[in-house]
């Protein structure tokens, strides 16, 4: 059995908005093993990024972890003090953000920004910081690191900025990298380059990656395990082969179905009809799976994950639905 590096259990995160409380993440559980790439997939607003920010305890000021545990290398991160969390951030767990343009300070030279993590964690003597930064720049594929070192982010392309973010994230050689949609703002040719860099680091260091994405193509290529998220819930989880071969939850099916297939010729691209989402009749249920919507009139009814086959979990409202599924 593989060694678990991160284990999130029953995580619930809420946000205060004008005296109302809104659950952004509800009872999310996931596990990442050493050397594994785990994909967290779902549409915008499904709670993927909030889950990842909870791991680093970097939620916005109105966000709060209501319950659950986040265990990293045997330590419950929720119980850690801010000082301890600072030692973990960047050093043991680092994060690559999706918007490379916004994630770099426009008024600071790239070289200075790359060495920030090394400086905080005092991993390299001050005199060697520049040398280390140049090596990192070379590692992420820059042919002229010394030139890039003294440039401002505005002088770099989107792909270059994203590589700088990767250099920052791997600077302290963390055991876990959280990549929050690292290729969203990049064109397809650069996307592969960036994902390959993350994958290369993972292989070289036997590190783990939590890959947050909404692109099943990326999942198929890089992930070992997949968690599908919707409306703050995990609705399906399995290894990547099972998810593609035997998706059970209608939302997973719809996501896979929306991948363009050149063999379908001129058939229109499938989309997820989310008008049901806005329908007040669903009383806040974020998704009404077609197969059992007739059965489940009370959409507010609690739902839970059922194991439909070994290590393949799907969210249902009750056991009858699982049985009816056959």
């Amino acid at each position, binding site marked *: 059995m593989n060694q678990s590096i991160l284990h999130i259990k029953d995580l619930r995160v809420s946000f205060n908005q004008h005296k109302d409380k809104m659950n952004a993440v509800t009872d999310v559980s996931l596990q990442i093993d050493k050397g594994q790439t785990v994909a967290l997939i779902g549409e915008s607003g499904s709670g993927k990024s909030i889950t990842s920010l909870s791991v680093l305890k970097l939620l*916005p000021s109105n966000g709060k972890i209501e319950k659950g545990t986040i265990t990293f290398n045997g330590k419950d991160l929720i119980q850690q003090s801010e000082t301890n969390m600072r030692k973990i951030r960047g050093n043991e767990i680092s994060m690559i953000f999706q918007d490379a343009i916004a994630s770099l300070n426009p008024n600071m030279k790239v070289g200075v920004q790359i060495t920030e993590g090394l400086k*905080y964690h005092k991993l390299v003597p001050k005199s060697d910081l520049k040398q280390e930064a140049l090596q990192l720049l070379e590692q992420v594929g820059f042919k002229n690191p010394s030139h890039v070192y003294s440039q401002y982010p505005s002088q770099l392309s989107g792909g270059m900025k994203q590589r700088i973010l990767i250099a920052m994230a791997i600077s302290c050689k963390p055991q876990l990298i959280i990549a929050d949609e690292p290729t969203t703002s990049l064109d397809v040719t650069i996307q592969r380059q960036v994902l390959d860099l993350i994958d290369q680091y993972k292989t070289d260091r036997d590190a783990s990656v939590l890959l947050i994405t909404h692109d099943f193509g990326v999942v198929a290529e890089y992930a070992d395990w997949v968690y599908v998220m919707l409306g703050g819930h995990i609705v399906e989880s399995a290894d990547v082969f099972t998810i593609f071969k035997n998706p059970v939850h209608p939302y997973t099916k719809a996501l896979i179905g929306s991948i363009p297939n050149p063999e379908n010729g001129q058939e229109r691209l499938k989309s997820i009809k989310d008008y049901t989402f806005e329908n007040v009749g669903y009383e806040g249920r974020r998704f009404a799976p077609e197969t059992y919507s007739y059965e489940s009139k009370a959409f507010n009814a609690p739902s839970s994950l059922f194991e439909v086959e070994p290590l393949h979990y799907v969210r249902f409202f009750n056991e009858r639905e699982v049985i009816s599924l056959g």
Partner: protein
Amino acid sequence: MIIKLMKQPQFVIGMLFIACLLIFSFYWPSLLDVNKKESLKLLDFLYDKDGKVIGAAPFPPSEIPPFGTDLAGKQLFYQVIDGAKYTIIIAIVIAFFRILFSVGITLLNPKSNFSYLNDIVQATLYIPTAILAYLFMNALLVKSELDSMSFSKLIVLQALILIGIGVPPLISTFSREIKTILNRDYIINTFALGSKKSYVYFKHVLPELSTKLFLLFAQQVIQSLILLAHLGVLTIFIGGSRTLMLGDFLDPMPYNIPLAGEWAGIIGMSFSKLQAAPWVILTPLSFFAITIFALNLMVQGIQNCLETNKT
């Protein structure tokens, strides 16, 4: 930032004027080759060659150029030049501490909306600052006379009142600005690398705020100058005043002379004689106006710089 500002002609002109005024104010006795004590002495009467009295203070600019004298016969030109350093330095100190305190308080709790403070600011928005300052300063002056407070203690307490009055609206401004910066992705990225709050504040937040801080500082200097002028009219002098008896024993005329030589004091001590000797008020007022104009030029230059940064 400094290099960018130096490329703004308005900023440079304004700054040069203020700098020249300050230098002149510090070194005018040697630059004009005059004796400071002699130049600032009281000159009650003008005599002819035979020692006959030919005129009494206040003397108009036509009799004693360039600006005439005040009611006690002190030459306004030397008073204004000598008072420039006190006026500008007092305004700069007030503005500096207002900015320092408000940024410090905001950074102590950057997540707070300071909503209670916003309510107070909104409620006091329509009360002129001079009235608020007058209420506190007047009470302080009364107390200083009763307790025979020292000159330096009085100045410090007066400065604290003037600083305190300007801090709440600034906190409200800074809390919005700092919150916006702290929500930027690159700040979250820096925290995700394990940085300390202090590092983020000094390396990311304050440099980002620097031009804005400079702009607000210049605006605060202007506001402080205006406030000082208003307080002068209300006969509130920085550092207090001493009373000089003019006239004769049959018709004594008490005349308050400010202990610090700033411009507001010159206005305040002669305001009641506005119609009889308008030049006494108009001279320091004109200097206030010119200095504020120079500061406004600097503000304009900073704003141009901010616009350039945005584009």
